[in-house]
């Protein structure tokens, strides 16, 4: 088990064609992440960071190359297979929170458990929301929460299935500095407690400084 990397990326490439011009977003990217590592992916806008993250999660399909999660080739699975794998072993935190507006904080955290068919998830979800400091906000809808509170709900949702990998896309991008710092603190605390592998895309120097490794992208290629 220790021999297999948590994430292994080899020769990953992504091209999109708009009209007659083909645009290369990622080009021959290879690296691996060992379990428990915290990796920051940094680079200028348009360098391919978010695409890389999306491909690691199987949210989009590559033009070439492979992504293996704990040895499992992600793109050998179909859409539903990838969705099931995500549900089992990945958690997500997005810049724009992406909570479901029709559900309360508690229900939002419950969704991944319910989708996986886990019984009695309510206690677990409640406990996690308490852990992120939202015990008073269980039955509030996203609209009724501040940005920082919404991101904390998202973090609780990301950790509720005890995923082995947490993927975060600019988690502080929509928050002010003080709130952002609180959210980062919380995320790293949970990461330590649960020994999760963390991959985060960020512009935030303070955030990348806290990671064990930094991967730099420029023009879709890995920089040394």
């Amino acid at each position: 088990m220790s021999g297999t990397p948590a994430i292994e990326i080899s020769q990953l490439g992504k091209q999109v064609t708009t009209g007659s011009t083909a645009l290369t977003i990622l080009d021959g990217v290879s690296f691996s992440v060992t379990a428990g590592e915290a990796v920051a992916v940094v680079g200028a806008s348009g360098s391919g960071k978010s695409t890389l993250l999306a491909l690691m999660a199987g949210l989009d399909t590559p033009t070439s190359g492979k992504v293996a999660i704990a040895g499992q080739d992600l793109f050998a699975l179909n859409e539903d297979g990838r969705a099931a794998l995500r549900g089992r072993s990945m958690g997500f935190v997005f810049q724009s929170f992406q909570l479901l507006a029709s559900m309360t904080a508690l229900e939002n955290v419950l969704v991944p458990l319910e989708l996986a068919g886990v019984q009695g998830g309510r206690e677990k979800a409640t406990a996690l929301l308490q852990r992120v400091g939202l015990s008073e906000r269980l039955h509030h809808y996203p609209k009724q929460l501040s940005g920082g509170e919404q991101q904390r709900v998202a973090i609780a949702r990301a950790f509720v299935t005890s995923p082995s990998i947490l993927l975060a896309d600019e988690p502080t991008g929509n928050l002010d500095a003080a709130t952002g710092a609180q959210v980062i603190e919380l995320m790293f605390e949970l990461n330590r407690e649960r020994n999760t592998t963390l991959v985060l895309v960020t512009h935030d120097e303070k955030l990348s400084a806290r990671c064990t490794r930094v991967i730099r992208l420029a023009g879709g290629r890995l920089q040394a």
Partner: protein
Amino acid sequence: MKLIQEIRMALRLLARDFRSGELTLIAVAVMIAVAGVTTVGFFTDRVNLALNPQANQLLGADLVISNDRELPAAISDEAKRRQLNVTQMLRFPSMAQRGDKNVLADIKVVAKGYPLRGEVRIADKLYAEDRRAQGIPEPGFVWVDERILSQLSVTVGEKIVIGNRDLQIAAVMTQEPDAAVGFINAGPRVLLNADDLAATGLVQTGSRIRYRLQIAGVAEAVDEFREWLEGRLEPGQRIEGIRDARPEIRSALERAEKFLNIAALVSVLLAATAIALAARRFLQRHLDACAMMRCLGASQGQLMRLYFVHFTVLGLVASLIGCAIGAAAQQALAYWLGSLVAVDLPRASLQPLMQGLVTGMALLLSFALPPIIALGRVPTMRVLRRDLGAPGSRGAAGYALGYAVIAGMIFWKADDLRLGTFVVVGFSGAMLVAGLAAWALLKAIAGLRNAGVSWRFGVNNLRRRPLATVVQVIALGLGLMALLTLTLIRNDLLGAWQASLPPDAPNRFLVNIQDDQVAPLNRFFAQRKTAEPVMHPMIRGRLVQINGRGVTAADYADERAKRQIEREFNLSWAAKLPRDNRITAGEAWPETGAQPGQFSMEDGIAARLGVRLHDRLTFDIAGTPITATVTSLRKVDWDSFNVNFFLIAPPGLLEGQPVSYVTSFHLPPRNAEMLGALIQQFPNLLVIDVAQVMAQVQRMMTQVSKAIQFVFLFTLLAGLVVFYAAMASTQDERIQQAAVMRTLGASRAQLTRAHLAEFAVIGMLAGLIAAAGASGLGYVLAVKVLNLSYNWSPLAWLAGVGLGGAGIALAGYFGTRRVMATPPMRVLRELA
């Protein structure tokens, strides 16, 4: 120049928005509304055109004076003195016979000069080419229509019997004036020379003869003659000119027209809802672009003008397409209803087109205007801060104009303040009740939220947008209700009506029985071991006074009341009122020793003529005035097919007046021989085949309900458009939700289940409301209108909920497939 530039820009915007599919729903909603209104519009226009300029063709003259009694010679003498052409026609029903076959025919007895206007067309044999007839049939010959030939299995050249006379068929009649006599067209027609009338022996007491004096000539001379005559008309005499031809058809058609128009307006109302929903979405999607244009220097006025042109062009194009659909669809109405009018329908005028355009534009502008105004007022700051939304479009108040426009249309089409108020208030009330019911049901199912993530996801979506959900439920519910009413409920009612007749109910009426035929007729039945039928005396008389005051047709606005006053009543006498009559006011007379000066009156006709209990009615019976007091009002079950009378007196009042008898009996099937023998022995009797009348009534009901169903189809379509518009308005949010769910590990199947749950709930709620509405309507129709006991049909509820749930789940599934097809990352990024 600047204006032209603006218009060009508006057109470019329109083309762009249309390509992106942003306007499809608005355009479809306008098309459906306009198509519904113009379908009815084009059809009624054609009927009106058919009845107007051809009126003298329909009449067969410029002026017709008619009466149930022979018209005084003074009238025709005066007309001739004024250089007008005059001819007299008699018209009555009688049996036409050949061998053992017989048919109840409409006999038209004509004299030289007929027809004064229009033409009779005849052919030498069935389906041969026809030609304009010269003159009328020679004595000893008749012209008959195709139905006589087929129903009696005869051909041209053979003989048929009418009354006591054998007559040879000289030609087939393919066209004749004065043919359109009413909604149920009269029987097969025979044209007979007046010289043969006496020999038939058919003019007797109680014969239902209508005398018609036809007059034609120069317009002014006709007008002057009419003026002269109007002052001299006696009760019962009636003038029909070109302007007032066929009032009974006209009033029946007017009622049908109103009904169809109001049905079409229901789709307009639903289309309005769809337009309002779609326009709101349009507004939300265009806020950014407008804010940017404002930043780049566009003025408020410019933006508003831009979008005004944009929507006007859209409305015009969509309305024109709707008109084209209506013009095609009205063919279906003409097919179902045209045969009831019994005239060839001319092509429609352009007036319905104008109506369609006005409807479409009024609808679009009044419901899209509030968003347009809001677009113009978008704050420029929005380019920096997206959370600065639309300047409030003042919510419901913004749509007050639109609803006022629709209410106005309803009043216009109803053409009657009371009916219009009834429809507007009734409809709003029903919507309110349905809305509250939908809201309560929605609350109730929210309690089932612990039933799994798919279900919860689906139901939460509904709960979070209660207004949109309720609107969808009502719109679909209305469409489904229309459908249920006209399929299941209609069949239930028809079934109940047929079942209400016992199998041995009388199926033949015998009319025209003379005093001296009663005994031989009883012997005839006794010989054939058939129960002797009860003979009801029948006396014809005209109502001339109520409480000593003279009454004329002019005293009544109601067309049927007018007709009733002009025609003769059938009165009868009996010691005991018929068993199936129910006294609703006053008291029945004792079986023996009743005071003779009493009438018992049917309550419907009493209400129509404004007669109340204890009123004194005077009838003119063959010149003798007879007066009696109304001492009871009765409810009569006309559907029972027993012999019934509007007016019955106790014995002693009417005896001694010219009388004929009427009876009904049950002719067992496979006993045609008896009927043949009966007519041979009593040629003057009229045998009315109830089964045939019933079949005709049923055919008519089917045709009319098909027409209504067809118009309601637009309602259902409009309901679906509302559903899609409401769905489209939440499409962006749905896409985001699905993407997040996919990211969190949801499978396609889980998402599909969630969507199906959501739409199935909408469909089932709509079905429930539809079933309740349709059953309620069925109940009212059965109990209040048709006097039947109503059985609540579980099928309507099952079909409503089942079909509604399944149908809408399916429709929703297809509508949201796109949500599932987009890779989640692309969506998340677009929304980020």
